């Protein structure tokens, strides 16, 4: 809402400095987006007159080479006024027109500096200006044409009058009243504690011809329209609006068109009630009358709106029809082209109606057509004042268009709105605000806002009747808000809740989710976030079967084709991040994400949203340093990360089993494992299959993992039992054992541990060695460091030897291995 300071000042006393008002607006909830000074800073801008205009001789574009008289502002060598040569692209002017000229040296809004220049080879010594270029309005289709009596050479700022200030205010959707100058005046009066002095024009003379003898109105669908007031004015003289009217229409952000249209716009800006003027002569006549019928549009019905667009309508939209048949306006949004006011209009049918907000809002969105009217209807206009507003408009038609006002109105108002009656308990208000606001102050605030407020002290309540243009004031809480914002939120003392009987903090599970993150970071992985959206082909591209991941959660209105559903795995997003890094020259990538995935269910509305932790490793941990070398990251780096993670969560029965390539086609066979805790599958770790990685633009080796956070948390423990720290020395013995390739490390370790008995304290694999000659084909040598220890005495070498011999025999027998000499 653009609020002209000059206009507002005519209705309520304002501070000298508009910025003081801006601050008060902000304090009480009216956001001010900009404070614009209009009509100022227009040095070197003068009134000019077009003396001659010729087509530009060479330009392909339609340019005019003009001679413009600017009076004394440009003198020839003889000291006499000399016309300026200006090249101009506008097409809306003719010889003799008075226009606005920026001379060389002018600086226009937006820091546009006017210099002598050449346009298509011809010298141009200034600029003919549009409203927009002057910062006066939005009009930019042509240059501004001034009335014929504008004095040539006069500085434009002098001609145009005092500059004005416009506060561009953002009005919240609950305040339709503030989409009008009247409403803003009441609001401002309440904020500043000033009386308003709003004078509305009144009809001077009503003719003898009655409106209801010329017009009938019917509302076919009461849900669409709660009131329809029609007034007729006759014999209008179409022409430009008076200066004051045009200026206010411009200040409000519209552009002057002609006096009739300008009056409807002006009254809308003044009262918030959208109006529409039909050319009465263009409406069909039956039995000497025009028949206005408000009805729902038919699906597929067409209407050409004022902007010249052919609109296809639906049954959800409301139309104004000519006798129920031909649509002549899209109700509440825009008039029809067929019944538009034009230069030949004689009689005008004025509509002041109240259309249902939901329909208007949907219509406006469906047609992508927003208008000053639709914005106001969307937020509800006040049906109670349609009649008064029609009278105000009629009075202005009379004053500004020379119209004769027909007697009376046609007013279809099936169910008059009733003012709300709301009880405000001052004690309740004080309790909610936490501020000691006196009863009388509350009453005063509410009265300033146009409410009738009566304090009933014995009942401990204020009985309030809000004005009908405040649909947001229906409950006590709404009034509390009004009281609080006028009292000043800043003046409420800040306190902390005096809370009883509650405790807070993270749950154990939440703490463990944090532990997962901190452990992965300690391992060297960096946390990232990727989109919850997915491409519908993501799983397919990865080669990840849908099984176990539910059905896709499809977005009906995606922004992008590759974000058309919700992800079922974090891995595709992470692979994209790997590709992004590699493409940007970052080869070492270590990322993880903890997040939800979406597993849809075919018969339920909402999907399961399990949490997963997933990671990707590519390149090395770091580039090699002067004193540190980094091997390429491989399967065992990822596995090590998982081992640290499961340790941190105190999972004790972790096993890694080779994956079945049929079940894990996105992983490289032989370098992938399922991760179990006891019998429970936690997830997987492995190299992404090179073919899958390539589908995401990744050419390097990527090791990844994906674990179910729920599964991890189910088995996580707070602590493990304490194990005595050894106080007696142990005996270290190395054992290299040659086994078949099929014998896994896990198998060998199990055998060693079970064969070692009580005395075997620990086993550590420190080498795996293959050599067809020294070890033998199909075989490997695995070297273990064993530590023997007894808790109660220092072992003798005999004891160790005995135990070790026994271990070696047992292990060799059960694995077919041989001790390597």
């Amino acid at each position, binding site marked *: 809402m653009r609020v002209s300071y000059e206009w507002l000042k005519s209705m309520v006393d304002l501070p000298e400095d508009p910025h003081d008002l801006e601050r008060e607006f902000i304090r009480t909830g009216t956001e001010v987006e900009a404070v614009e000074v209009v009509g100022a800073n227009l040095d070197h801008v003068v009134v000019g007159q077009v003396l001659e205009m010729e087509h530009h001789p060479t330009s392909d574009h339609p340019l005019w080479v003009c001679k413009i008289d600017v009076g004394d502002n440009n003198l020839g060598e003889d000291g006499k006024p000399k016309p300026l040569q200006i090249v101009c692209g506008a097409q809306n002017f003719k010889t003799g027109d008075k226009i606005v000229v920026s001379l060389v040296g002018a600086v226009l809004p937006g820091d546009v500096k006017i210099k002598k220049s050449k346009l298509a080879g011809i010298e141009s010594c200034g600029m003919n200006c549009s409203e927009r270029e002057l910062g006066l309005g939005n009009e930019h289709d042509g240059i501004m044409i001034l009335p014929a009596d504008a004095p040539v050479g006069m500085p434009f700022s002098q001609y145009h009058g005092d500059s004005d200030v416009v506060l561009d205010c953002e009005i919240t959707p609950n305040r339709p009243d503030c989409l009008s100058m009247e409403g803003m005046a009441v609001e401002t009066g309440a904020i500043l504690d000033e009386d308003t002095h709003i004078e509305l024009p009144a009809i001077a003379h009503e003719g003898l011809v009655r409106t209801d003898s010329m017009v009938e109105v019917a509302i076919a669908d009461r849900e669409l329209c709660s009131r329809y007031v029609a007034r007729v004015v006759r014999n209008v003289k179409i022409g430009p609006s008076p200066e004051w009217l045009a200026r206010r229409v411009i200040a409000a952000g519209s552009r002057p068109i002609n006096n009739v249209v300008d009056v409807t716009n002006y009254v809308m800006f003044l009262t918030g009630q959208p109006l529409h003027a039909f050319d009465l002569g263009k409406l069909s006549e039956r039995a000497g009358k025009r028949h206005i019928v408000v009805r729902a549009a038919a699906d597929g019905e067409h209407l050409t709106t004022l902007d010249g667009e052919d609109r296809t309508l639906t049954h959800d939209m409301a139309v104004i029809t000519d006798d129920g048949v031909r649509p002549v306006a899209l109700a509440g949004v825009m008039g029809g082209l067929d019944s538009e006011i034009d230069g030949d209009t004689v009689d005008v049918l004025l509509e002041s109606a109240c259309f249902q907000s939901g329909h208007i809002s949907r219509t406006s969105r469906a047609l992508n057509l927003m208008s000053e009217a639709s914005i106001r209807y969307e937020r509800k206009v006040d049906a109670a004042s349609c009649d008064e507003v029609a009278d105000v408009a009629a009075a202005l038609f009379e004053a500004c268009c020379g119209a004769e006002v027909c007697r009376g109105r046609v007013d279809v108002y099936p169910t008059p709105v009733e003012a709300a009656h709301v009880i405000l308990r001052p004690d309740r208000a004080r309790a909610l605000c936490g501020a000691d606001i006196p009863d009388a102050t509350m009453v005063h605030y509410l009265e300033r806002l146009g409410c009738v407020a009566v304090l009933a002290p014995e009942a401990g309540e204020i009985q309030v009747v809000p004005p009908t243009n405040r649909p947001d004031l229906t409950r006590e809480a709404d009034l509390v*808000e009004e009281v609080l914002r006028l009292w000043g939120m800043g003046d409420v003392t800040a306190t902390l809740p005096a809370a009883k009987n*509650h405790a807070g903090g*993270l749950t154990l599970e939440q703490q463990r989710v944090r532990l997962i993150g901190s452990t992965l970071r300690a391992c060297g992985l960096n946390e990232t976030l990727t989109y919850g959206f997915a491409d519908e082909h993501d799983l397919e591209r990865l080669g990840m079967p849908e099984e176990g991941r539910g059905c896709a959660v499809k977005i*009906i*209105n995606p922004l992008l084709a590759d974000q058309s559903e919700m992800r079922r795995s974090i891995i595709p997003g992470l692979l994209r991040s790997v590709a992004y890094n590699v493409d940007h020259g970052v080869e070492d990538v270590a990322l*993880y994400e903890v997040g939800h995935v979406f597993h849809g269910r075919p018969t339920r509305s909402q999907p399961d949203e399990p949490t997963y932790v997933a990671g990707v490793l590519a390149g090395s941990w770091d580039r090699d340093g002067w004193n540190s070398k980094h091997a390429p990251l491989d399967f065992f780096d990822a596995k090590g990360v998982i081992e640290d993670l499961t340790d941190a969560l105190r999972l004790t029965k972790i096993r890694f089993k080779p994956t079945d390539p049929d079940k894990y086609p996105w992983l490289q066979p032989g370098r992938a494992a399922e991760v179990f805790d006891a019998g429970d599958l936690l997830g997987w770790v492995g190299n992404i299959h090179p073919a899958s990685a390539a589908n995401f633009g990744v050419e390097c080796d990527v090791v990844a993992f994906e674990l179910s956070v729920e599964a991890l948390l189910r088995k996580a423990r707070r602590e493990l039992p304490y194990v005595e720290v050894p106080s007696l020395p142990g005996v270290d013995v190395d054992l290299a054992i040659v086994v078949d390739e099929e014998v896994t490390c896990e198998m060998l370790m199990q055998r060693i541990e079970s064969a070692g008995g009580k005395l075997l304290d620990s086993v550590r694999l420190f080498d795996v060695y293959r050599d067809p000659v020294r070890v033998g084909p199909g075989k490997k040598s695995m070297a273990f460091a064993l530590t023997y220890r007894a808790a109660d005495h220092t072992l003798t070498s005999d004891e160790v030897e005995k135990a070790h011999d026994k271990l070696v025999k047992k292990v060799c027998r059960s694995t077919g291995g041989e001790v390597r000499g």
Partner: protein
Amino acid sequence: MAMIDDLKAIEAQAAKGISGAPTLDDLDRIRVAVTGKKGSLTGVLRSMGAVPPEQRPQVGKFANEVRGRVEEALEARRVELSHAAMQARIAADAVDVTLPGRRPQVGSQHLISQIVEEMEQIFCGMGYRVMDGPQVETTYYNFTALNAPEDHPSRSARDTFYVVDNAPEGKEAHVQGESDVLLRTQTSGVQVHTMEEHEPPIYMICPGTVYRPDTADACHLPQFTQIEGLVVDEGITFGDLKGTLDYFCREMFGSDRATRYRPHFFPFTEPSCEVDVSCGVCGGKGCRFCKGTGWLEILGCGMVDPNVFGFSGIDPEKYSGFAFGIGAERVAALRYDLPDLRMLMTGDMRFLRQF
């Protein structure tokens, strides 16, 4: 008294050798040669039998003194030499300390989750719990129960992602989208879930991902992170809201930051307001960063609307409460003056490792 002379000679020679011994090994050789089993001094002491008995005490005493002095000298020289050796080793060991250290690779936490954790920390300190809710939500929880009118523009497909409803029967009328299931546009729905599932007092925050159909650009993401807060208890006032959010803003942005409460409108709170903190760049004087206003908009909040209590079955006469919502990306952008929010989603290691 030839033996005394011998002792004196040995002592003199040993002293000379000891003081001149260049290394610990040389010194040790001297020790062996003088006081070792076959050493010269040991030899002399061994031949004490040849000394006439009446001279023995005197010679013996002298011999022991010589031995003591020699041993003392040996020890002193050993200390000296080993100290020198350590000094030499240290000197040889010196490095250029400006060479880079050998750093364990430690990962970084994503900026957004740092901010979320920071907020969780602040509110947990005030006795809040952290709640979660579904991201694929119903229109009821995302809008209706939050008092958003049926025709509210935020419900339109232009402002909300709708998803295909696999079980559409028995739902609310399809007013806006083709579906009653959507990607939550706000974490506010968790307010309703929490009030349905828990009796007051409720002190909770809910950080979570939300979605809106805004094309990703420098200032927008179609997916971002909101932190919702809700307090429901007896006697909660607007002053409590202010005290809580003032505390939060000081903890989050610094104790020198001021706050400003501007009345605003949200369907689910009444009264509602937006909170600004004073600009940290200019200290509130107005600069490019705060667009000359001196203030930065941080969050929306208000007293819980009685209608919302009604939907959740909480008696608004007995309880009152406040709610607030903060965008984590907004906080991140303000704290670091991020030029492009899309950086948050690319996984660029060079970006992630800065935080």
